[in-house]
């Protein structure tokens, strides 16, 4: 009997382990949070999985007792109520103290990661990100490079009400832009976030970070994409910002440091006069009273 129970338990453990092992793979199919490509996103994923499994464990125990009660103590099976069970100070202390301990065990790593996230010292590149209704503007500070980043034309055509265009035929539907943000790998990049009109939020799930872009205020977040993780990463505005909130995606191209340097130089040469004119125009805008 005991042998059979342990066998059964062993099989259950194996299945559970199998499910756990399969989870990162499931992330690709859109079931779970991505592990991401920065050190922080990996840690955030780890925290997420820690809390998820703690919750699953608690659920197995608590739901187990509930289901057992529903099955074992049903009147149709002849269960007679034991009305003497009305309280027990001892169990009540136990089920208050144990949750507190579990919470502390989760709070410690969470607080540690949070401190790391908020450490914006020693950044190597600063980019000012401005949210507009409904596009993003990126400005490489002190580099004279800046540009708007707007929903790609093919997505924009397909997303019109009753366009008749099948979204499946549009590559990266709603997640493509005309000018992606370009950043180098292995570099601590600081984003300074603000907005020109209403509150927006800048979010790329693979980077693990999301922060509001608020008019009149500057928020900051930092990204350090791991070496060897070059590629294209996509995200969206995450704070309701009006009619076309769903149509201002974020696309980030991560290049090697050399490629990035070359790209930046090309941008500087190509767009220098335009960028200066744009900066001047924005400054003029900022001096005009709101509503004028």
């Amino acid at each position: 009997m005991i042998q059979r129970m342990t066998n059964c338990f062993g099989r259950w453990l194996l299945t559970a382990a199998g499910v756990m092992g399969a989870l990162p793979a499931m992330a690709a199919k859109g079931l779970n949070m991505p592990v991401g490509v920065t050190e922080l996103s990996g840690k955030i994923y780890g925290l997420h999985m820690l809390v998820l499994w703690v919750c699953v464990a608690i659920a197995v125990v608590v739901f187990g007792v509930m289901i057992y009660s529903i099955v074992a103590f049903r009147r149709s099976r002849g269960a007679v109520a034991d009305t003497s069970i009305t309280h027990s100070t001892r169990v009540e202390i136990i089920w208050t103290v144990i949750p507190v301990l579990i919470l502390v065990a989760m709070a410690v790593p969470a607080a540690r990661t949070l401190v790391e996230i908020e450490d914006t010292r020693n950044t190597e590149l600063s980019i000012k990100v401005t949210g507009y209704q409904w596009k993003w503007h990126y400005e490489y500070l002190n580099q004279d490079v800046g540009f708007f980043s707007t929903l790609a034309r093919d997505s924009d055509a397909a997303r019109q009400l009753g366009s008749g265009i099948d979204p499946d035929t549009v590559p990266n539907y709603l997640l493509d832009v005309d000018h992606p943000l370009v950043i180098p790998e292995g570099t601590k990049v600081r984003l300074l976030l603000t907005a020109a009109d209403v509150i927006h939020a800048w979010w790329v799930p693979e980077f693990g970070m999301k922060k509001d872009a608020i008019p009149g205020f500057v928020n900051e977040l930092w990204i350090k994409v791991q070496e060897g993780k070059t590629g294209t990463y996509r995200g969206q505005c995450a704070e309701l910002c009006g009619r076309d909130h769903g149509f201002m995606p974020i696309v980030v191209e991560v290049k090697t440091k050399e490629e990035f340097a070359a790209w930046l130089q090309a941008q500087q040469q190509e767009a220098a006069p335009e960028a200066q004119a744009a900066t001047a125009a924005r400054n003029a805008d900022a001096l005009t009273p709101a509503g004028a």
Partner: protein
Amino acid sequence: MQHVEAGHTGAPATDHSHHDEKPQGLKRWLFATNHKDIGTMYLVFAGIMFFVGGTMALIIRAELFQPGLQLVDPGFFNSMTTMHALVMIFGAVMPAWVGLANWMIPLQVGAPDMALPRMNNYSFWILPFAFTLLLATLFVPGGGPAGGWTLYPPLSLQTGDALPMTILAIHLMGASSIMGAINVIVTIMNMRTKSMSLLHMPLFCWTWLITAYLLIAVMPVLAGAVTMLLTDHYFGTSFFNAAGGGDPVMFQHIFWFFGHPEVYILILPAFGIVSEIIPTFSRKPLFGYDAMVYATASIAFLSFIVWAHHMFTVGMPLSGQMFFMLSTMLIAVPTGVKVFNWTATMWKGSLTFEPPMLFALAFLFLFSIGGFSGLMLAIVPADFQYHDTYFVVAHFHYVLVPGAIFGIMAGVYYWLPKWTGHMYNMTLAKWHFWLSAIFVNVLFFPQHFLGLAGMPRRIPDYATQFADWNMWSSIGAFGFGLSQLIFPYLIWKCVRGGPKATARVWESSHGLEWMLPSPAPYHTWENPPDVQFPDEPGENVMGDQPGPDTAPTHTPDGR
């Protein structure tokens, strides 16, 4: 446990029949001061708003059925999400709770009516006007409010003519809620029957008492916040305008100082109802009665110091984020105590599964799932990923639909025979339960996956990788929505007729309301019942008294 003194056993039908004259026609409802009539009006109003808000939800889910925009303009979509929330929160759930409070609190504490009947009338009749105003915004230039029910400026200040109408509607709802809350507090504090101490009150009265204090504390805060929006828009102030020295984030702090206690306003009365139903159908007293009361009070206190967990991404100082993370995690402790106590109440009980119990059990499981995702959301670094995604949508719908709304339905199925004097169709009620319980999961569970995979909330169209789960969610939504049509039909049939209900209705029901005949006469407890309670805290458990009044109508074995 206790006994009722002979000669004062509440209200045998004969005692009260001569008081049963009620005003006739429209006047009965327009000038109603009777708590039962007002309670009925609240519940009917809540039911209508439930279907109005539900229709809006179905418009949202229909558009999200597949990628691409097929049905509605994005601006209209945004006003649907905004209005759905406002209608469901202020029009469906809150009035349903006030309706249940009106009906049940006087019966449960042995009071002849609510303490302030005329104000009770005002507080109800404000609501139809408030919601006419709110729903009318859909037809004004610029359309309805589309900045989300949270009304964050500067976006909400871009609203057209709907803005002042929405703000006035919110003021009216707030006034109504505050009046309702005052009535509940005064009734419970002043009109309890003499022998019932606070720690003998039914848990539904306890949770409502605490809810009422929350309402009085936070509704004025909301009123202040929306008034500042109004003056920013029309009178040139700059409370929330950075260009004028204001701060848009300040609105979020003020709003959520209201908003977080508000979510407990929506759920605490459900805790009370579940605490009534589980003991009845487990045939055991509630486990840890006083712990339940203190846990509810702790949750209410904590709800005032966790508000900024709704806004971890606004860029708060590290110390602020730490504080709000830790205080939020603490809420898990008293909530856990409640869930454990409900489970312990079932332990070694004698369980039967009538519709109220089924809804209470679904509440227990599904609200816990919402609690787990709530704990995950408290972890700030992970919240940077979850925030403003469908994971959050899944979380709060799990606590509000199978939480608050299943709580309301459980309460209605529990007390309906008491109100109408008829038993309802058990089979139909079970169909309603199973369809709701299955579809609510098809509707909301996939939204966890969508959020984790990166789908932001409040978008009318989405990238193609989100198509599968959105389709499932929409199927669940239509299944859930259509299943709800059973509910009004069943209630209508039960009002019109059915097997006669006895006073006690359920085999092991407990509390003063079950000493009254079914249907409860128009006027009840004109002489406060003289009930002996034991010294220790706990609810009034009805003894096994002989007589037709105490025989249950419904015995599970006699099906």
